[in-house]
């Protein structure tokens, strides 16, 4: 493809984006734009954190342990004299890798299972609905605890555990969406036209059902980060050698009186990142759902 053709395509694509409703609503909400920019910064920081960290997050120095903020150590040092800022930055990468992978898996699995159960109904659909109920009957951390006992710690195991815990809420939402939409006229007309079921599901139903699931995914990213940090705070899930916020707080508990930064800084990091995902989730809901009025947004 020549350069001119590429340019033309980009221009057409930009024009089509500018014409959409959600772009118009996004333009009206400067606070939401700020949230998206901050999220972009966070994601970039997560990707480049090992390079961007000013100091080696694993370098210990017992002479400098439990220090307050200084120009050398922006957020102070932990009980082994490791630079807290670098450790928080690397903890961001850990959390984001686990959370994004988990949500990607649960999104695909939940949407597939949920839309199948919703569209086909029958005994298979009922069975799936029952299984979803069972998974939702476990309070999420409890199920995660049981699975961590089974699998042991590790990044891959953590992703697996969180996916098993969370797919059900996606499946339930997707099933509900498909159930609500499947008797709509456009679906009936597609069926009357003799289109295959998978085509109707993917091409007609999915675009109309997917946005609430995307909103749930964005908010669940924040929720997953909370769950990861809770599990590693309890000493389960991730091995202690990987910098992780929950475990950093756990490790800082002993010296909490003399070095409160050890528990404050990672906690603030968790709160900040989760807050951004929550705000982004609500923002996406506001700009994509035409029924929502402006009142609901922050």
């Amino acid at each position, binding site marked *: 493809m020549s350069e001119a053709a590429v340019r033309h395509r980009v221009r057409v694509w930009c024009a089509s984006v500018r014409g959409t409703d959600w772009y118009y609503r996004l333009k009206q909400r400067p606070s939401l734009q700020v949230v998206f920019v901050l999220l972009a910064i966070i994601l970039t920081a997560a990707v480049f954190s090992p390079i961007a960290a000013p100091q080696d997050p694993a370098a210990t120095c017992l002479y400098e342990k439990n220090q307050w903020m200084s120009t050398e150590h922006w957020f102070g040092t932990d009980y082994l004299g490791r630079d807290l800022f670098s450790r928080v930055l690397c903890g961001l990468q850990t959390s984001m890798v686990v959370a994004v992978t988990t949500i990607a898996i649960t999104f695909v699995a939940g949407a597939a299972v949920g839309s199948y159960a919703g569209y086909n109904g029958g005994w298979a659909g009922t069975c799936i609905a029952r299984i979803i109920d069972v998974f939702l009957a476990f*309070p999420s951390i409890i199920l995660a605890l049981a699975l961590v006992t089974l699998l042991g710690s590790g990044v891959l195991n953590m992703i697996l555990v969180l996916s098993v815990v969370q797919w059900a809420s996606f499946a339930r939402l997707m099933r509900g969406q498909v159930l609500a939409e499947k008797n709509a006229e456009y679906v009936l007309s597609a069926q009357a036209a003799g289109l295959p079921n998978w085509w109707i599901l993917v091409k007609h139903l999915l675009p109309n059902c997917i946005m609430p699931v995307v909103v749930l995914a964005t908010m669940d990213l924040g929720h997953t980060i909370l769950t990861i940090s809770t599990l590693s705070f309890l000493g389960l899930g991730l091995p202690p050698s990987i910098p992780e916020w929950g475990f950093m707080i756990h490790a800082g508990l002993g010296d909490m009186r003399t070095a409160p930064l050890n528990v404050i800084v990672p906690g603030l990091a968790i709160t900040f990142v989760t807050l951004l995902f929550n705000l982004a989730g609500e923002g996406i809901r506001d700009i994509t759902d035409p029924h929502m009025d402006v009142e609901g947004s922050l």
Partner: protein
Amino acid sequence: MHYYLIKRIAHLILTLLIASVFTFIVVNAAPGEPAEVLARHLYTGLEEAAPPELIAKVADRYDLSKPLLVQYSDWVGGLFTGNMGYSILFKKPVSWLLMLHLPPTILLTTVSMVFATIAGIIFGVYSALHQNKISDHLIRAATIFFASMPGFWVAVMLILVFSLWLGIMPVAGYGWPLFIILPATALGLHAMVSIVRIMRTSMLETMEKPFVMFAKVKGLPMKKVIFSHACKNAFLPVLTVIGMSFGALLAGSVVIETIFSWPGIGEMLMKAISARDLVLIESTIMVIVFLFLIVNFVIDLLYHIVDPRIIYE
């Protein structure tokens, strides 16, 4: 109504049954021969390997040599009869341990829930009545901020500020009423946030309804319109959120109880998990699931009492 009740109970039992199978499989599929782990725990100490004849003896003594299916049916039967087996960690019957540790958890979750409901309704109604004013924005910003804070960190921060810096609260322990304040706050915060948000939305919707308009028009004082007309009708969605939050509270109690050394089933579960006490783990998880489902079942039935217009098919 009767048909609905029977159907709901059948669903409840089915869900519990599948959940018990699932729990049993997950916990028993954990690596490590249970009899061997048990033998080491009981007799030889953790580092030494247990001799095979001892393992065989232990397996025989604790019914671990039976096939898994028999073990499962024994366990499920035990859940009903109260004979759930022995905890290797505490060297006591599991049912006795659960009886001992359930009341503190129920106390803690109830206090948190009551606190969350009352505070949630007050803030939610206030926020709705002052829509788009500064206070409304502040409350909404605070809810979204609190919802993003992990519960365990809230607990740690509360200890740091109120126990270590100000010195007005005990750090940890079990007691009444001073000891329950910090854990109940930390535990109930997320539930409170969801209740504030649902109450606000629901209240805003209700205030637009014709009957509220009518109450206003006929000259009732605003207090009366809000409290005896609007609030009651706006409460229904809160009931659902209370049910859902109860699961989150039970799950959160595992963390909060561990931090505050609150002697509930959550703390016991954590100890059981670190000691790989399988029987205790699976029984505790089933009790938690059971509590969660029962509370939601009761709340489902409460709908009809709160709002008689809701009739079950």
